[in-house]
């Protein structure tokens, strides 16, 4: 009798562990993203931080990777494959999940360029036909709806994105960004990327 009870107890423990593992398997999509984007979605060069990103923006980018509309080199090398087989529901769920994570600022820009970057971001440079980023990306670079949060993203990521529009790559972000970024000088790009990397 006690032997049967022992067997039941052991089986109960084994099944409860199996159930927990099965629960982990449902999070496979997130684990796959975290390989490159970091355990709490904070990013790991060259993969950008996803934590706290606007869900509509993340979802649109995943669709753009899948359709190859976004064609810069790292996107092609890594994200085209990663996004190739995502269902609409998974895209929605991933975007929602990452938007709930708390974003940590990268703080890795050049501190000497922050003031210049802030001026470009908040006021623009009308004499050079450069718009103020704040109008779309919000006063604390937090974005809104499909417009991404830029605050606290890594310096190298922001710099690369701004350079690539000027080089003719398509981010499928919508009309203004290639035109805007194409007008920025190298110094202005570095200033903006520096400023934004520190914004919480």
């Amino acid at each position: 009798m006690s032997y049967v009870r022992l067997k039941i107890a052991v089986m109960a423990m084994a099944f409860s562990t199996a159930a927990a593992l099965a629960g982990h398997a449902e999070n496979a999509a997130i684990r796959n993203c975290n390989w490159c984007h970091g355990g709490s979605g904070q990013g790991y060069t060259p993969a950008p931080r996803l934590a706290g990103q606007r869900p509509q923006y993340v979802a649109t980018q995943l669709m753009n990777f899948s359709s190859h509309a976004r064609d810069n080199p790292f996107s092609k090398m890594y994200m085209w494959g990663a996004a190739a087989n995502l269902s609409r529901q998974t895209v929605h769920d991933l975007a929602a999940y990452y938007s709930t994570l708390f974003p940590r600022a990268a703080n890795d820009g050049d501190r000497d360029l922050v003031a210049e970057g802030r001026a470009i971001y908040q006021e623009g440079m009308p004499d050079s036909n450069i718009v103020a980023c704040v109008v779309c990306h919000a006063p604390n670079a937090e974005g809104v709806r499909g417009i991404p949060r830029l605050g606290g993203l890594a310096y190298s990521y922001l710099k690369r994105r701004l350079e690539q529009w000027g080089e003719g790559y398509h981010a499928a972000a919508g009309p203004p960004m290639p035109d805007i970024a194409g007008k920025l000088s190298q110094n202005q790009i570095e200033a903006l990327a520096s400023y934004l990397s520190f914004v919480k």
Partner: protein
Amino acid sequence: MNKVVTGGIQAKLSYCKDCHGPSAQGYDGYFPIPRLAGQQTEYLENQLRAFIEHRRTNNIMFNVAHALSPGMIAALAADFRALDPKPIGGAPTRFVALGRTIFQDGVPDANVAACAACHGPEATGSGPIPRLAGQLYPYLIKELVNWGKERGQNPAKPDTSAIMSPVAHSLTRSQIEAVAAYVSYLK
């Protein structure tokens, strides 16, 4: 990597379109950026001058307008007048019918004249009176709600914005939202 900024009117127009949209249809960014397409030239020129003279308050447009010469102002207004994209839409539709009634008949109990009387039955405006057809829903609400805080800021130099003050004051928030929704869908 730098696009050559050739200066002149084309570069300036492209710069305006960076915010106001590739066909100047407007854009709902963090701040709502109004439609300029099809706008009355006299109204647009008046607004740009109001920004330059700080009679109309908007920190972004202060900076933008200061870089414009009078010749540029006239040329830009003419360029925008000629554009005719579809309205971007997106406003809630449940109060559009109420908005149409307010637009066409006014609100007699509140002494508010019919908008159509000045802005035209199709809301296309005329002379210094702006086109409202196809304007952004959140922009229209913001303007009507903030009229006195944003326009006519120099009491020593009153301008045409004074005409709208009593209207903006007398409309309730719901009425503003209804009429904004209605005109935002007009082509």
